[in-house]
């Protein structure tokens, strides 16, 4: 049996990078599933690719619309956007500041 690619240490770091926090039960379950998925994905590394196979970004060659002309069109009700905020003040979105020890700017 192969050792887990995602050890509890690596897992904990991923959780932190993802701005998540998990209970021990969730952690074990998710870590197990991640390792199963990685096992399923291992076969990708065994595939031999012919010379010059390019990454495909959308499957087909996307030929969508050209960039738009430069015109200012104000959104009719920006207040509706701010209204969705869990906390706001004086027209600003409001959040607590980073505490000491957390990553700051």
């Amino acid at each position, binding site marked *: *049996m*192969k050792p887990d690619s*995602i050890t509890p240490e*690596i*897992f904990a770091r*991923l*959780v932190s*990078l*993802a*701005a*998540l*926090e*998990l209970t021990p039960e*969730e952690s074990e*379950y*998710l870590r197990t*599933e*991640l*390792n*199963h*998925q*990685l*096992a*399923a*994905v*291992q*076969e*990708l*590394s065994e*595939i031999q*690719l012919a010379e010059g*196979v*390019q*990454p*495909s*970004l*959308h*499957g*087909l060659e*996307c*030929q*969508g*619309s050209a960039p*738009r002309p430069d015109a200012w069109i104000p959104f009719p*009700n920006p207040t*509706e*956007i701010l209204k*969705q*905020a*869990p*906390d706001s003040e004086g027209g600003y*979105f409001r*959040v*607590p*500041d*980073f*505490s*000491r020890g*957390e*990553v700051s700017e």
Partner: protein
Amino acid sequence: MNSIHLSARQIAQKVRAGELSALDVLEDHLRQIQTVDGAPGSLRHERLNPAEEDKVHAFIEVTAQRARRQAEQVQALVQRGEDPGSLAGVPVSVKDIFCVEGTTTTAASRILYNFRPPYTATAVERLEKAGALIIGKVNLDEFTYGSSSESSAFQPHPNNPWNTQRVTGGSSGGSAASVAAREVSLSLGTDTGGSIRQPAAFCGVVGLKPTYGRTSRYGLIAFGSSLDCPGPLARDAADAALMLQVLAGMDPKDSTSALAPVPDYLAALQEGVRGMRIGLSRDYDHITYPDTLTGEMSIQAIQPEMNSAVRDAAEVLARLGAEIVEDVPMPNARHGIPAYFVISRVEAASNLHRFDGVKYGYRTGTSVRGLSELYRATRAEGFGLQPKLRILMGMYVSAAQHSAQYYQKALRVRSMIRSDFEQAFDPRGAYQLDALLTPTTPTTAFLRKAVLGDSVLMQYSDQMTVAGNHAGIPAVSIPAGLDPLGLPIGVQFFGMDFREDLILRAAHAYEQATQNAEWRGVTPQALRGSEVSA
């Protein structure tokens, strides 16, 4: 006559002709919802009411008032002799992954439990402009992550109308169920790895994934931005064509939406399959499944009814004059799920970054010491297990030290999957196909809770459908019979870029030729107790 027994085409035609009132259509369908749906999905996880075991639970929110206003508008236009639209009076449900102004758009997640978007998705706008009645938002897997709709934060999740002990499939489970249960005529779903086609197959309805870019993604809360396709679910191919006609076309708000001209899909249906080259592939009669400890892949049989349904369908089409092309090689089909695990998760993780409790939706109520803790607590409490799983996987395989091995490699494998289809459909190639016929799923609908804990097994439910998303091509799943347990079997047609007309043609021809088949007369379980006469 109860309009729930009419097709969308028939409803539209009668409403436009003034023979049927959109308001009556609305009432018929609201009554049906009342009869078969039971409690809508909600965040309060009440114990599942045993009296509702046989209910469909397709909806999160029924938007009766909105639908009534629309019905009134349609009637006003009809009365004035003006064009009420090609979908006039047709009841439509919308997967709650589409932003619709005036509704709550939840993505079936706590993290958006109260989100009221100040704008409406283009796909929904087009439906409303065509006179459709938006009956409500239907349930789905949380953020469309899953193949059973069980992972919704809004419980109870939808049940399969054919057997309510079984899942609808997912993620467009509510869409498929609401159409199968005659609560609506049509539903707007999304397909990223099979999320329209697989639930359509499980629920015995038609589900079409259009070509990538054929329908606008503006307003669709994104899962896999390079894979997501909004599309129709309906009870027959012609209804799917009618709905696609309204949805298709370039949208300046979506840079990936296609400029390709939109043909007349309904007219195309009539052309029949004589001379159409329809392929069969051995690479689609089994699945290649990994050992989750060693990673070793092995061939596994699929439910035998699936393959026989495909063979039977091929025979029907051959009798209609189609040319069946056997043994078309699709050697990269087996890489579909592994590549999907990587690409879709990378995009999902990035797309979920914006849910942080700052601007909208859920913010943690616990007192936090600082902003980082706000992020963590909000996302921990707001997201269910499936989003968390996708985020973690996505971040791992796109990390700087792993990206080449996983993400960059998967993107190249995606090219290979695409090239299988290019070769099969090449008009100067060895096979020159117009369509490829395959099973839609490896199994019929599984039992509730049977697969939910196993994320790999769950994903493999999409092994037959996912190649279409990698390649960007269109594909449609249609009902092709019932298995010995009476569960629907689906078969799938893949087509080439922007040739939805060809695959709908094949689907329609098959439907017409089998319209008297015994299995078409069977009523789904959830509708039997309250059978409303036509």
